[in-house]
């Protein structure tokens, strides 16, 4: 009742080995061709189109047609149906479509050293070794694209994808066949109630996926005891509408007990939703005569949810204090009219609660010492890392709030 899947690199002696495994175990082999034909029948796509979907040859119109996703949905359904038969060996790419929850599947990977494979290919195809290397490279990169599509893993030979990884250049055929049949008789691979249920859920999920992909939707589908969970992994503005539509499609699929939709990781661009941060500085005044610099800075701070006002000279900065007092001031030293040092002196004399960060292009060590003595919170040099600046701002604002609390 168990199932074997065999994935392999080309020119690893795979044909001989697979034949011997089949002979020894009595399992019937189901190759990609068979699965592709089946998927072709249910989808109406040509076999070559489905093969293209496997090899990552996606049409530029795929964004609209979703042919790749639809092809894979139909492949999944074909594999799920193939599992209904007893003692099958799924050979090739399609075995990867079987979910891990189905525990009565022995996942085998056959692979060999590249040098060995190149010599095998050169011998079989009667070509030069560099040409053979090209053939192997092309096939491997298709395999990598596939495992990336299915698992997000560009290493098709990653041990985590299989139960046993067999180096075919280092072990003889008898050893390999014995290893496989020993593993196959392992208790772990006996079908259990849970694993059979998982196989049933796999078919249901595949049918749901086909129904959704037929309507142009691409969401990930999970089935558990007939309960379907749909995960929306892209940003959609009219989310409720979409959820309703997905549900109306899925509820028509036989065997669906319940439907739940949820929003996946890809829904929001950033993983953690940036709530308006009430700890962020509320009033920042930027004082600098380099208009372009200060505007850009203001916008960059804005992107970090730090609102700021801008003035271009010392006099307007001081006027601004009367109008509406900032919490933190970022101040350039060299400005026409009243220069930064003067502004700093006046601010600290009349409104000591305001923290001043000096941000200057030409300042000397002497300037720095003077500014710090006059009560500046920090002294930074242009060009400044935005991280450093926003961190300094946050610390300055923290101090402002602490002072305000203390004086209350």
């Amino acid at each position: 009742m168990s199932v074997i899947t065999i994935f392999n690199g080309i020119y690893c002696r795979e044909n001989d080995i697979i034949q011997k495994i089949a002979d020894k175990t009595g399992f019937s082999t189901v190759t990609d061709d068979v699965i592709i034909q089946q998927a072709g029948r249910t989808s109406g796509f040509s076999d070559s189109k489905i093969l293209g979907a496997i090899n990552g040859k996606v049409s530029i119109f795929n964004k609209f047609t979703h042919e790749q996703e639809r092809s894979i949905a139909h492949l999944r359904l074909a594999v799920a149906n193939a599992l209904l038969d007893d003692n099958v060996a799924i050979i090739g790419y399609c075995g990867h479509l079987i979910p891990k929850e189905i525990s009565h599947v022995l996942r085998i990977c056959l692979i060999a050293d590249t040098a060995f494979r190149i010599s095998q290919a050169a011998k079989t195809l009667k070509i030069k070794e560099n040409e053979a290397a090209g053939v192997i490279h092309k096939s491997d990169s298709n395999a990598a694209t596939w495992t990336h599509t299915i698992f997000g893993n560009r290493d098709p030979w990653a041990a985590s994808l299989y139960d046993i990884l067999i180096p075919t250049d280092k072990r003889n055929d008898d050893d390999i066949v014995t290893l496989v049949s020993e593993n196959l008789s392992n208790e772990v691979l006996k079908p259990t109630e849970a694993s059979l249920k998982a196989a049933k859920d796999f078919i249901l999920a595949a049918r749901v996926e086909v129904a959704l992909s037929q309507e142009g939707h691409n969401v990930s589908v999970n089935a558990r005891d007939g309960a379907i969970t749909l995960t929306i992994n892209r940003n959609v503005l009219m989310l409720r509408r979409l959820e309703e539509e997905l549900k109306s499609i899925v509820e028509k699929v036989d065997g669906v007990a319940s439907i739940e939709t949820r929003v996946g990781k890809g829904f929001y661009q950033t993983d953690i939703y940036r709530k308006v941060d009430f700890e962020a500085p509320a009033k920042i005044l930027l004082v600098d005569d380099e208009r372009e610099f200060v505007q850009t800075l203001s916008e960059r701070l804005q992107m970090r949810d730090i609102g700021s006002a801008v003035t271009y000279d010392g006099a307007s900065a001081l006027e601004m204090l009367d109008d509406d007092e900032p919490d933190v001031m970022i101040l350039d030293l060299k400005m026409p009219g009243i220069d930064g040092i003067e502004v700093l002196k006046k601010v600290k004399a009349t409104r000591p609660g305001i923290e001043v960060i000096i941000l200057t292009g030409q300042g000397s060590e002497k300037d720095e010492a003077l500014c710090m003595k006059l009560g500046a919170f920090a002294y930074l040099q242009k060009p400044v890392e935005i991280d450093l600046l926003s961190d300094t701002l946050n610390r300055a604002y923290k101090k402002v709030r602490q002072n305000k609390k203390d004086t209350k």
Partner: protein
Amino acid sequence: MSKKENILNAGTALFAQKGFRDTSTSDIANLTNVADGTIFYHFKTKEALLLAILEKVKIDILNEFKQYTGNKQCDNGIDMVENAIAFYLYLSGKMENQFLLLHRHFPYELAEKNEECREYLEAIYNCLVDIFETAILKGQKDGSIPAEKITRKTALIIFSMVDGVVRFKTYNMYDASALYGELINSCRCILTCKI
């Protein structure tokens, strides 16, 4: 009008016409004759101001729609769709700045990372698409629109056509008013043809 409303209106106009990034709070302050600080007082950040504007757009559209449905009586669904198109075009003229803002890219970028923004925009579009969906559904019930049409998707397609014509007008791509008659005809064709 209160200072806060003034700021909201000025913000709507400036964000719509100059774009979010190219509008500084000083621009809004200048237009409303308040200090920058007043803006920060009412709205913590420029983003928060945009959110407040979107919230107001949502409320305004809902109110307009309530008035519209209260006044209109339609014999059948297909006429109701026609009315909905007319209402949408009327609304886009009446709330020109708000529609211009909705046709800018920035709100949607923000919606991708800000839940609140996404919710306001979803509510706005739900309301707008509902206008068409309700009409099509009525048409399918009274037989003026074939029942086998997928209501939801058809509503979205009609909506994108109508909104596309509004975009034509917004960006002066063509004399959009000349398209009105044909827009109505085309929508009628789409809705009444059998597949």
